[in-house]
């Protein structure tokens, strides 16, 4: 059914809407036809996120593309956002679902701040919350079509985890989503080590992002790298990577060929 707000009120600070929600009287047979929310398909998607733990915390990289099928439609989408004081969320997959997740997290952080008890949500708690949200949506066959990367530092402890659209959740020293799983993780497995400096960490991420740029059709050459340390979260300005095309073999590959290959 078409979801419309039942009540609608605004005060100076926020804008509140309450939706009609189907009442579950346990009669799943009758509700099944009424419930038209089923597994959807993504429209505007973000590609890989790559993230690693390093000496002072966590580094995360993503490009700024939003693809619409095969069209590289949006080129200024920020796919990494700070959550509270201690965490950074990166997302690949459907952008509208990522925007909705940010709204859920806004509410989570707001409620956390309202306790006014000096405590604040750490990355482990945020990751756990997201895992529950993603898994429960998966159980209702109505997933949020994203793979999320959650990194953060609290009380000197670095944290890096991932949740997929089906609720698979884990922590690791280095993670990647989408194409990054196939192209970046092998590089990270070989070259990551504990206590990377900031410079080495950035270079390692850039190595991964360059490979993704060469080999992922939905990658664009405009990326950001984000850093989370005890001090807080910073997301870099957008920038582009140089690429290399001067291999001799690239120059005239069909020179000695018969036909076109």
């Amino acid at each position, binding site marked *: 059914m078409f979801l*419309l707000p039942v009540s609608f009120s605004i005060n100076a600070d926020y804008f509140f809407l309450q939706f009609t929600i189907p009442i579950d009287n346990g009669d799943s047979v009758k509700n099944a036809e009424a419930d038209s929310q089923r597994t959807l398909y993504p429209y505007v998607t973000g590609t890989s996120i790559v993230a690693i733990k390093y000496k002072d915390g966590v580094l995360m990289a993503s490009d700024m593309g939003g693809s619409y099928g095969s069209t590289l439609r949006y080129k200024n989408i920020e796919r990494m956002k700070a959550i509270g004081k201690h965490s950074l969320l990166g997302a690949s997959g459907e952008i*509208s679902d990522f925007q909705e997740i940010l709204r859920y997290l806004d509410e989570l952080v707001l409620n956390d701040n309202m306790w006014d008890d000096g405590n604040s949500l750490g990355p482990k708690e945020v990751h756990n919350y997201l895992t529950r949200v993603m898994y429960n949506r998966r159980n209702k066959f109505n997933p949020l079509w994203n793979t999320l990367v959650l990194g953060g530092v609290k009380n000197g402890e670095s944290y890096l985890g991932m949740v997929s659209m089906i609720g698979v959740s884990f922590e690791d020293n280095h993670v990647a989503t989408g194409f990054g799983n196939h192209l970046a993780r092998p590089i990270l497995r070989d070259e990551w080590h504990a206590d990377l400096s900031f410079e080495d960490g950035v270079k390692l991420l850039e190595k991964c992002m360059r490979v993704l740029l060469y080999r992922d059709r939905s990658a664009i050459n405009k990326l950001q790298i984000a850093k989370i340390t005890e001090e807080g979260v910073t997301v870099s300005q957008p920038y582009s990577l140089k690429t290399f095309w001067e291999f001799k073999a690239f120059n005239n590959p069909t020179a000695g060929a018969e036909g076109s290959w």
Partner: protein
Amino acid sequence: MDLNLDAPHSMGTTIIGVTYNGGVVLGADSRTSTGMYVANRASDKITQLTDNVYVCRSGSAADSQVVSDYVRYFLHQHTIQLGQPATVKVSANLIRMLAYNNKNMLQTGLIVGGWDKYEGGKIYGIPLGGTVVEQPFAIGGSGSSYLYGFFDQAWKENMTKEEAEQLVVKAVSLAIARDGASGGVVRTVIINSEGVTRNFYPGDKLQLWHEELEPQNSLLDILNAAGPEPMAI
């Protein structure tokens, strides 16, 4: 040839929204199709939400109409409660709310554009799925496929009102030339601090593109104009 007159009314469409130094210019074609038949050749796809915010509609005609009707209704109430004109951002977020929460049923891509005293001229693109993207310019509809390259080359920041409108008219006209689902006239709406201006550019007022010929009343005019023996071997 099957005209499929029972196909849902869809606005194939080309829609554009562009910010300039002082406001926004919204533009659209005027073709509404039912399968292969042109149900309305002079539709108005740029719809008012408030005095200062308009929306360009594409995709399903019904879906885009009903969404903009609801949002106009919500914004009317919001304006009363707020005591001043609604902002473009609020308008865009209301559209997003409906588009996102009903993503399974709706098939409409929208471009919200307007002017408010806090942020000036703003354009928000809301494609299928309900993503909101604030952009200096936005293109949408089936005709937009032919305009990505054009805008990559022709767009610049801080254009004047005249430059912006000319860019929009040129772009819609180019899309109409290549997209079968776009056609008719080019409509533009300019919104700034002074108010709203609607313009109308019928096909014969537009520049001719590749393989397009100057329209004539009749072959006879051509034959007569060419001299006494035009068909002599």
